[in-house]
C-alpha cells in the first residue's frame, strides 16, 4: 500500500500517522506539503491531526482551502481512500468530503483520554479487521470534536451504515456520560456514502503497539494494507 500524509502549517500528528502506516505496510508514506498541487500515485491519503492554521477562524476551515485539497477531493472522487483523523476529520468535513460539522466540545475544554468506541460498520477497508459491535479503546485529544449535523442527515448516516464509530461506556452501552465531547448520538467517526472516506476524532495511530500500551488501532492500518495492497 502506498500512502500520502498531507502536512499543513500546524499539523502535529503527522509523525504518529507515518509511524503507524510504516509499521503496518513496511513502506514509508509520502509527506505532501499543503501548498503542493499534485499528489503522487497512492492508495490512501491520510489527513493527520494537529492545529492547522492554529485552528484560527474555525478548526479545519482554512486548511480545507489549501491548494493540495483540490487534488485530495479529486482523488477521493476517483475512489482513492481518504482517512481524516482529528484535525484531519475537521479538514475533510470543511472541504465537503463528509457531511456535518465539528463544534467546540460540550464542556468547552480540550480533552485527552482513552475512550471506548463501538465499531458500527465493518464493511470498509478501514474497519474490516474489526468485528461489528466490537468495543475498542482509542485515545482522543481534541477541543473541537462535538459532531453535529441536521436530523435528516443523521437519519441517513444511520440508515446507510455511514456511522463508523460511536462513543460508548466501558461495557459498550450508549451512555452520554461516556461521550467525551457531546457529539450527536455519540458519533465518533463517519464514512462517506461509498465508505471510501473515513473521518474520526479519536486517534487509532496512537494505539498501535505494546509501547503505547494499546494495540486497538492496529487493525485499522492492517485492514487498509490488506485491502489496498
Amino acid at each position, binding site marked *: 500500500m502506498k500512502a500520502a500524509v498531507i502536512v499543513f502549517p*500546524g499539523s*502535529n500528528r503527522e509523525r*504518529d500517522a507515518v509511524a*503507524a502506516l510504516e509499521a503496518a505496510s513496511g513502506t514509508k508514506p509520502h509527506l505532501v506539503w499543503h501548498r503542493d498541487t499534485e499528489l503522487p500515485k497512492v492508495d490512501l491519503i491520510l489527513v493527520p491531526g494537529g*492545529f492547522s492554521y492554529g485552528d484560527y477562524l474555525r478548526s479545519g476551515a482554512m486548511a480545507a482551502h489549501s491548494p493540495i485539497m483540490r487534488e485530495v477531493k479529486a482523488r477521493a472522487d476517483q475512489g482513492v481512500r481518504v482517512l481524516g483523523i482529528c484535525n484531519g476529520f475537521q479538514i475533510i468535513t470543511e472541504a465537503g468530503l463528509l457531511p456535518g460539522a465539528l463544534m467546540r466540545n460540550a464542556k468547552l475544554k*480540550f480533552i*485527552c*483520554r482513552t475512550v471506548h468506541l463501538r465499531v458500527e460498520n465493518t464493511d470498509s477497508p478501514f474497519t474490516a479487521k474489526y468485528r461489528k459491535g466490537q468495543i475498542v479503546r482509542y485515545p482522543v*485529544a481534541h477541543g473541537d470534536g462535538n459532531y453535529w449535523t441536521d436530523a435528516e442527515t443523521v437519519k441517513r448516516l444511520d440508515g446507510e451504515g455511514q456511522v463508523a464509530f460511536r462513543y460508548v461506556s466501558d461495557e459498550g452501552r450508549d451512555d452520554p456520560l461516556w461521550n467525551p465531547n457531546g457529539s450527536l448520538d455519540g458519533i465518533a467517526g463517519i464514512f462517506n456514502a461509498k465508505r471510501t472516506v473515513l473521518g474520526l476524532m479519536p486517534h487509532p495511530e496512537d494505539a498501535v503497539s505494546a509501547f503505547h500500551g494499546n494495540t486497538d488501532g492496529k487493525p485499522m492500518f492492517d485492514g487498509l494494507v490488506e485491502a489496498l495492497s
Partner: protein
Amino acid sequence: MTTAQQPEVSLEMAREFGLSEGEYNNALKILGRQPTYTELGIISVMWSEHCSYKSSKKWLMTLPTTGPQVICGPGENAGVVDAGDGDAIIFKMESHNHPSYIEPFQGAATGVGGILRDVFTMGARPIANMNALRFGAPEHPKTRHLVSGVVAGIAHYGNCVGVPTIGGETNFHPAYNGNILVNAMTVGVAKADRIFYSAAAGIGNPVVYVGSKTGRDGIHGATMASAEFSEDSEEKRPTVQVGDPFTEKLLIEACLELMETDAIVAIQDMGAAGLTSSSVEMAGKGGLGIELVLDDVPMREEGMTPYEIMLSESQERMLIILKPGREEVAKAIFDKWELDFAVIGTLTDNGKLVIKMHGQTWCDMPIAPVSNASPLYDRPWEPTPAAAELEDAVRALPADRTLGDILEKIMSCPDQASKRWIWEQYDSLVNGDTRFMSGQADAGVVRLPGQSKGIAVTTDCTPRYCLADPVRGGAQAVAEAYRNLSAVGALPLAVTDNMNFGNPEKPRIMGQFVGAIQGMADACRALDFPVVSGNVSLYNETNGEAILPTPAIGAVGLLPDAMIAVGIAFRNEGDTILLVGEGTGHLGQSLYLREILGREEGPPPPVDLAVERRNGEFVRSLIAEGLVVSSHDIQDGGLLVTVAEMAMAGGIGANLSGLDGADAGTLFGEDQGRYVLAVRADKAAAVQEKAKAAGVPVSVLGKTNGTALTGRGGEAITIARLKKANEAWLPGYMAAAE
C-alpha cells in the same frame, strides 16, 4: 547624538524604571553622560533582578554544575546533558508567575512558549513538557479563576505546538493567594555535535530577525517581574504578552530546518526584555559590538519608538547571526513557513550597542561595561530558626476515627486529590512516543524519536518542608526528583532549578533562599546530580505577604530502553509488596498532621543523602533486571497513601499483613529515601537476598489482592471508596463556579 523626540531622563524616571539611585549614578559614570531615554530603558532591564540575577547570583554560583554527563551548564538558553550514542538532552524550567497572576490564560500560555524557545533555540526538538503549579487556598475567591485560566493557557499553547505535556505537580496553600506560581519545563533532544549557542561571532555578519512581528505588548515585563505586587497590580495587565502557539509551531519547524544547513553562527530567542537582552547578550558573549537599524524590524503597529521596539516582549521571535552570504538560504526557509525574516543589523568590532532609526542614533553605549556593571548584591540574610520536634503522643492513631476515614480524608485533600481535571486538558500523547504520563508513574517517560531509548522527567518540591527548614527542604526537593526518576528505573542525569521566593531585600526571605540553595547543593553533590539550567523568580509577595519558599526542581533521567520503565499500578493478584528503606515514623510537616490533626508544625523529615543514593541505585538495579512489576516512591501522605495510589492505579487491592498494629507514624510518616515495590511472589526471596547483599533494608508489607486494602486489624478500605474520594475533589471544586 540626536535625542530629539525622546523624553528627558532623570533620577525620578530611573526610579520608575526600577533602578535605585546608586544604580542610576553608576550608569552616569559608565556612560560619562546622561543616558538617552532608550538607553535608560535598556539599562534598567539589563540590571533588573529578572535579567541580572543580582540578588541570587552569589548563591547560585555555589551549586554544582559539572559532571561527565554535562555538555553545557548554566549560562546558555538551557542546559545540555549527554544521553549517549551522540544524543543530547536539552532542558530547562522557567517561571511565568507574575504575568500568570495578572492574566492567567496568556501568562501561562506565554510561559510555555518561552521555555519551548529556550530549548529549540539550542537545536533541540522539544519532546516533552511539564509544569509545576502553586495556587492559593481553594476558598480564596480568585483561586478557581486562576486554576481555570492557567490550565487552559498551558493547554492552548502546549497542545497546539504538538509537544506532549507528560506530567507536573499542583499544590494549594494560602501563601500563594496573591502570587501563584507557574513553572514550565521543556525537554528536547538534539545531536550532541549539532548544538547551537548564543555567542555572536564574525565582524560584519548579518543580524537577522525571524518570527512574529513586534508590537507594544510586554513592554517592561522584566521590570514587573522584579517587584512586589500591590493592590494596583491589575493595572499591569497591558504588560502581559499575548501568545500565538501556531506561529511558535512554525518557528520550531523553520528553525530546526535552518539548523540542518550550515547557515547559523549563533541564535537566541527574544525572551524577557526582547530585542534588548538578545542583542546585548549575543554580542556581549562574543566580545563584539552590534548595530541595529530598527526601521527594518517587522512591526505590527504604527509609530513605534526605538524605546518600545527595544523593550517589547512580543512573543515568538528569534535573533540569528548568519554566516555571510547565507541570507537567501535562510530566507527561503522562513518564506516557506510564512514567517517574517529581516536583516536588521550587523556585528561590529567596536563593542558598542548602536541603535539607529529614522536616520538618527538613539543608543550608543558600550556593551561590556554596562553588562559587567550589572549590580551584584550580597544581601543580608537570617537563617530560619529550627522548628520544635513533635511530642511522641502524636504517633497514636485517633480513637474516634477509623483508618478508612483518615485515609479517605487525606486522599481527597486539595494537595493529594487527583489532578485528572488538569492533565486531561493537556495532550500527553502527541508524537506517539509517550510511555508514561501523569498518574501512571513517578516520572513522565517518553522515548527519543525513532529510538527505543527513553527519557524520564519529573518536577518536585514540597514547599511546606522548605518553609519549616529551607536547607532540608532544598535537599528534599532534589532527593525526591532523584527518587522519582529511580522509581521508574531511570538513571538520574541532571537538574534544572526554578527558585521561587519572596522579597530578597528582607533578611528572613533571603535566608530561605540561601538555605534552600545550601540544601540543594549538598544533595546535588551527593547524588551526582548537577544543576545545568535554572531560573530565579523573586518578589513573589503581595502587600508584604510572601509565598512559601518554593525551589522547584525539574530533572531528567535516562532509560536504555523506555519499555523497561515501571509504573505505579499494581498489575497482578498475588504479587509481593515490599518496602525499600526504613523510617522512624516522622510526622513533622506531614499531610497527616495538617489534614487530620490540623497542625502545620514540626521539622520536615531529614534527608540522608547516602541512603537516598544507595536505595535509588538498588531500585534501579532491580528494574534493570526486570524484577519489578510496580514501583512508587513514598512521599506526601506516607506509606499507606503510596500503597493506596498503587491500588487505585491498577484496580487491584492489597492485603497489608505486614502493617498489623502500625501507628500513625508508620502509616503516614513522610520519612525519605523509601519506595514501595510489587514483585512477582516467586521473585520476592531473590529480591530480599539482593537487598541484604546491598545493605538495603527491605521488608514485606503484604501482597496484592482483591479490591480493597485489608489487613491491619481487618478493616477493609475499598479501592472504589478511595478512588471516589481522590477523583471527586477537583472536578467538584471547579464545577462549583460553572
